């Protein structure tokens, strides 16, 4: 495995309160994360809100400066690079934002937004850049003439496509998406996930996808890192992780995925309560207060991420002895009634090819405001 992007003991603390006297209050949002992301893979980072996954994504691209640790890309430590060298490297490392409504400058036309990365890095002549903007727009499922419009004229899914086109414009090698679909309607999520998959193959990208639930990235990720309170607790190839999790927290996340199958198990909640306050994390294993398998050692000794064979690592004292439930790989079944309705729908669609158009991209109205 050749790593394209590596994190070494990456740390980031935020000072939440700095009193005039006494010690400041510190949150360790990312606490000693080490990762190797292989060229060409889709690497997913999952965890509950507040576990530090967005901070980690921003640290990997140095959108925020780390408190400690290193990020290696192409033989250079991004964490300690001078500002102008870092700026030049951003051509290779791009970011997709979570909220498509606030991540596009409202004052710029779509064409200017997509052209901007090329301008910033001096790529091509103005005419070449405009041609590439048109090309990128059609590539992400929009129309070239959309370049003259403004972001507010598009729906959430369309804006996310604009954000993706912008991220692709400079010809990056690594694309990091911070929950790129979580702000979108469920029906649109699948489209954008599929688009990212296609673009990854077409442009030879390495994708890093941040997600808060395992369902979204199930069919997309090559490997998955599960984060809890600023630490990676389990890292494994996606198929293995879904089939047989080794960390109790991963099992919890998997159990929370609703299975849309006839007669399948319902979504369950294995643990109660919220994650502990990250300002004062519990001693020992950080998951022990919520863990159904916790023993004495879990309360006192902090487990470290150790190799568990088959390319997997896990940070759990009891990983070897526990046998945890995964998600069986069965395709979702349908009730007879639902199956009949789907068949009817498929026939109707086949008879009227116009209606098979992607409802997101086949713009029928001049203005669409939001989802």
């Amino acid at each position: 495995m050749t790593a394209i992007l590596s994190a070494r003991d990456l740390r980031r603390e935020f000072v939440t309160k700095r009193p005039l006297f006494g010690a400041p209050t510190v949150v360790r949002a990312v606490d000693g994360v080490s990762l190797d992301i292989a060229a060409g893979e889709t690497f997913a980072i999952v965890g509950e809100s507040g576990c530090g996954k967005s901070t980690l994504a921003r640290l990997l691209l140095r959108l925020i400066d780390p408190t400690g640790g290193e990020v290696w890309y192409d033989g250079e430590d991004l964490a300690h690079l001078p500002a102008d060298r870092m700026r030049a490297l951003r051509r290779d490392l791009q970011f997709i934002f979570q909220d498509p409504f606030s991540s596009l400058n409202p004052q710029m036309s779509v064409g200017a937004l997509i052209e901007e990365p090329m301008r910033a890095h001096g790529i091509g002549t103005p005419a070449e850049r405009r041609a590439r903007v048109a090309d990128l727009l059609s590539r992400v499922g929009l129309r070239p003439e959309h370049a003259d419009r403004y972001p507010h004229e598009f729906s959430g899914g369309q804006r996310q496509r604009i954000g993706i086109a912008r991220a692709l414009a400079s010809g990056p090698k690594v694309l990091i998406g911070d929950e790129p679909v979580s702000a979108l309607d469920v029906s649109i999520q699948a489209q954008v996930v599929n688009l990212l998959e296609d673009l990854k193959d077409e442009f030879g990208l390495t994708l890093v996808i941040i997600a808060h639930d395992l369902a979204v990235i199930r069919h997309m990720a090559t490997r998955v890192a599960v984060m809890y309170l600023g630490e990676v607790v389990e890292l494994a190839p996606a198929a293995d992780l879904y089939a047989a999790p080794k960390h109790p927290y991963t099992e919890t996340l998997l159990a929370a995925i609703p299975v849309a199958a006839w007669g399948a198990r319902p979504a369950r909640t294995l643990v109660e309560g919220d994650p502990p306050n990250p300002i004062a994390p519990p001693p020992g294993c950080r998951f022990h207060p919520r863990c159904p398998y916790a023993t004495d050692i879990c309360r006192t000794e902090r487990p470290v991420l150790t190799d568990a064979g088959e390319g997997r690592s896990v940070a759990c004292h009891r990983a070897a002895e526990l046998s945890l439930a995964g998600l069986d790989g069965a395709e979702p079944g349908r009730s007879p009634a639902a199956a009949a309705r789907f068949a009817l729908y498929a026939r109707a669609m086949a008879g009227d090819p116009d209606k098979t158009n992607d409802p997101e991209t086949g713009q029928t109205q001049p203005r669409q405001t939001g989802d």
Partner: protein
Amino acid sequence: MSTVATTPAAAAAAEALPRKQSRVWRKFRANKAALLGGAIVAFFVIVALLAPLLPIVDPTATDWLAVRQAPSAVHPFGTDEIGRSVLSRMVWGAQASLLAGVVSVAIAVCLGVPLGVMAGYLGGWTDAAISRVTEAMLAAPFLILAIALAAFLGPSLTNAMIAIGLSAMPIFIRLARGQTMQVMTEDYVESARAVGLTHWALVTRYILPNIFPPILVQSTLTIATAIIAEASLSFLGLGQQPPAPSWGSMLNVAKNFLEQAPWMALYPGAAIFLVVLGFNLLGDGLRDALDPRDH
């Protein structure tokens, strides 16, 4: 900002789309209040510019036989306490008043906005230094500060404009700083950094266009304040020097004769009112037209 058309159909569709400039103009044109404001401002600007060409008497010529005459065919707006034509003084005074309003606000914006953006963008010690000085200036009332500065610089219309501009600057520093800090929290600013923009490109393409509307509105309001401040400075002998006219100095003299010659105050007062109204309507209209989010 045109698209490279890849197909004839796309080219036709691209041509059918309105251009950005015409879109702003169309929105502005549809706003009747903004058009009225623009017309008022344009009227006073044209009158001020054409003052030497208009068939009116010398604004400084006194006529002791026609002191405090009520408006009549000979003196359409009446005469003042030493027999000068109020109409002539109004027309020539428009130059001083409009210039004082526009130039002093231009000074305040050109100095205040860069300082405010710097404070908001850089933060830390730069912000602390700029903000403390701004607060110190704001602690002194606007007019007192303008009077002190004008007295320090020496009496003339130019110095009065500089004094008013510097006194109005803290408002723009504070506004630009706050707006910058607000815009900085937006995701699109982070996206600009992720793309690899220089600080200069980020400030000029992301910060300034997004803080422009409130600054425009504040500017129109401050033009009004500045016209009145110029009047006050002229009254104290620190602005427009007699016998050259300005609306402010006319108004200040006229207040002594409100009962005997109300027309002396009526016309300059109405002119100040109208210009201020015009600038406010124009500013509101511009803000709405320039905001791509509004319909």
